[in-house]
């Protein structure tokens, strides 16, 4: 298992590759969510939690073509398969939902900076909506796994969007919330996180989800004086750091204050992000 930390690890895409592989399963999770299980290609290197794959949406009929690939965070990766949890957000994610076992999908990866691995530190994962994937995956990659040093809070709108029949979230180390209280804590996941941090402090929080949620989590991190690593999303062109399409504003210097989500991220030290100007609200 990987134990290197983000301090010494700067990702370069040199071990990423382009693959065409089979869909093993396309599982309906809820009205908006599905889980795409791909056969793991033999040369796909071991991904780290927070990394993503850049997926070509297959054309389902002659009239529909996609010129941009879609980046999806890795939800799980075993010897045999790669799981992606996808929310329907537009035509591309809708088209991918129609893929069936046996269909071929082309992607490259794994790409991007992962969450740091912090041995001996207590990390609180805070995920909302489609932000589950990298934080769930981190449960398999964190030192000691899910439990004492890595707790995961996950919030969704309703019980249906927790898709508990398909993703085993009711386990030690995980606390759930729903906006309507239909399962777990009633309220949003940042409210839950505030409560959890009062009960037991942490050395860092890791977030992934809607910008509004992560922005609130940053305020929480500032209040407690702890580190915050946030995984962002954006529309991407190349996913290799070349085209400068997927940038977000930061307080960092250099020729430009912008950094790419694909290559400098998707996981950023949240204290350098200009939270009020992120392109996806």
């Amino acid at each position, binding site marked *: 298992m990987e134990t290197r930390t983000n301090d010494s690890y700067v990702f370069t895409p040199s071990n990423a590759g*382009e693959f065409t592989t089979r869909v093993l399963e396309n599982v309906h999770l809820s009205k908006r969510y599905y889980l795409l299980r791909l056969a793991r290609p033999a040369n796909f290197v071991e991904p780290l939690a927070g990394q993503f794959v850049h997926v070509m949406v297959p054309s389902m009929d002659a009239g529909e073509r996609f010129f941009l690939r879609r980046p999806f965070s890795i939800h799980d990766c075993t010897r045999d398969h790669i799981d992606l949890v996808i929310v329907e957000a537009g035509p591309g994610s809708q088209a991918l939902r129609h893929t069936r076992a046996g269909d071929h999908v082309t992607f490259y990866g794994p790409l991007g900076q992962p969450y740091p691995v912090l041995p001996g530190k207590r990390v609180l994962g805070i995920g909302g909506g489609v932000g589950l994937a990298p934080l769930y995956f981190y449960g398999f990659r964190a030192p000691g796994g899910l439990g004492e040093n890595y707790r995961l809070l996950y919030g969704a709108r309703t019980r249906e969007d927790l898709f508990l029949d398909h993703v085993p979230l009711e386990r030690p180390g995980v606390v759930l919330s729903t906006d309507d209280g239909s399962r777990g804590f009633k309220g949003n996941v940042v409210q839950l996180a505030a409560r959890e941090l009062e009960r037991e402090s942490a050395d860092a929080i890791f977030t992934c989800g809607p910008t509004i949620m992560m922005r609130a989590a940053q305020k929480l991190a500032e209040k407690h004086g702890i580190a915050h690593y946030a995984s962002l999303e954006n529309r991407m062109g190349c996913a290799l750091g070349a*085209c400068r399409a997927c940038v977000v504003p930061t307080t960092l210097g250099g020729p430009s204050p912008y950094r790419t989500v694909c290559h400098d991220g998707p996981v950023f030290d949240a204290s350098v992000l200009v939270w009020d100007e992120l392109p996806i609200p």
Partner: protein
Amino acid sequence: MSSISVKIGPITHKNPVFIASGICGYAEEYSPLVNLSRLGGVVTKTITMEPRAGNLPPRIHELPHGMLNSIGLENVGLVKYVAEKLPQLNQHRDIGVMVSVAAETEDEFVRLADAFAAEDGYDGLELNLSCPNVKGEALDQGRNPQLVERITRIVKSRLPKKSLWIKVTPNITDVGSVARAAEQGGADAIAAINTVIGIDFNLETGKPVFARGSAGYSGPAILPIALQKVWECAKAVSIPIVGIGGISNIDDARKFFLAGATAIQVGTALYADPGLPERIIDALEANPEWVTQRALTRAVVR
């Protein structure tokens, strides 16, 4: 040298397939996915005298038949390019390396040209006189034939041994007059076309998708526009034309040669299909006559 080599100005390129400026960054970024050494060459992302931060995101927007971008010439600037990127590109001296540059004034073009006169490790410059995503200057230059001729002449006079390509805009009525001006100024080739100006609106906000409003449209939708501009240029000038715009398969590439292009550049298609340039090269190597096939006779000497 294979049978599909092409001569543009002082340089013979081993094949006519390039990656367009802005798509592949400074080229090295794409080395995990593209076997760069197979290419005729790359045109690196436009650089300017000073670094540019680029436009406020969002910067990219997919549409049913193409893509709008509003990157805004984000780049590391001349000094860093020369110090860091050119040495990287030196690992790829088996392919053509064209450096895309833009400037706000003629004087700045002089300074850029002088800076490059002191460097090696590249084959020439592609002058971006046609970016729609920055305020005023670049596109206005490209719409003014007198200015195009003057800029071309002053850059060529400082870099006489380098290849000089002038990248033209389709956002003009008479592209032939701009191509002629570039030829008069001493250009070695016309690169046609840059993106087509477009705009899209967000129905939820009621505002344009991009902070700057208008943006550059690329992808399959612009193929016939690009072919027509190449066709016009081919009738206007006798220097080579490098065809760019909407190439997403081998057939598209062939059409540029028919329209009169000597070489081609693949752009937006690379995002979805990084293997495309190599497949086009394979097809051209198998059918070298495609490279010289023209729909009309040109005075050009290849």
